[in-house]
């Protein structure tokens, strides 16, 4: 079952841990969540992103800025 665990820290950091998705649909949900948060006045900058496959983390680690 696709699940997003969202940790909201006091300092304004939001950590989203997505799991259980097929393919890259998790990123579509992430984009949707961040876009919708912007409609509520919350601008987010992505500081770090790690893609995971199965149990082991693989490939990408990126730092992107959006909506600042």
């Amino acid at each position, binding site marked *: *079952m*696709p*699940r*997003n*665990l*969202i*940790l*909201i*820290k*006091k*300092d*304004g*950091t*939001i*950590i*989203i*841990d*997505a*799991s*259980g*998705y*097929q*393919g*890259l*649909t*998790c*990123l579509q*949900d*992430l984009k*949707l*969540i*961040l876009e*919708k*948060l912007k409609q*509520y*006045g*919350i*601008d*987010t*900058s*992505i*500081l*770090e*992103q*790690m*893609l*995971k*496959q199965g149990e082991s983390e693989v490939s990408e680690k990126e730092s992107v800025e959006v909506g*600042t």
Partner: protein
Amino acid sequence: MSHLTVCKAKIAHANKQILKLAVEELAKTLGATVKENAKVFDYDEEAEDVDFLIEMKGKGQANGIGVKVTSSGIEVILDEWAFDYKFKARELSEKITQLYTKYAVLAVAEEIGMHVENITETEEGIVISLVR
């Protein structure tokens, strides 16, 4: 495939309905009530218009914690001295921002058809579990 994403959030144009939920939750933890479109007074009775007032009696004319939406975010106004520094505007601002984000996430979840599985408060922060 899944991901772990770390974001930094900044509130630019707060939604008053969402902010009201956040302020009400904070007020509840302080055992206080919330008044909308009120004036916050300091010790000397100098007032400022605010969107929400968490009503509490302080020294002199101080009547609580004011919260207002500004173009740059959420502003917390109070006379810290009149409450013996029991409350710090900066800490309250961080808490309200955290609660605002929580209620915004819950509103977003409903909009995009995700089910809220669980909400917990840990030492690290507020954790919301959303499932599809």
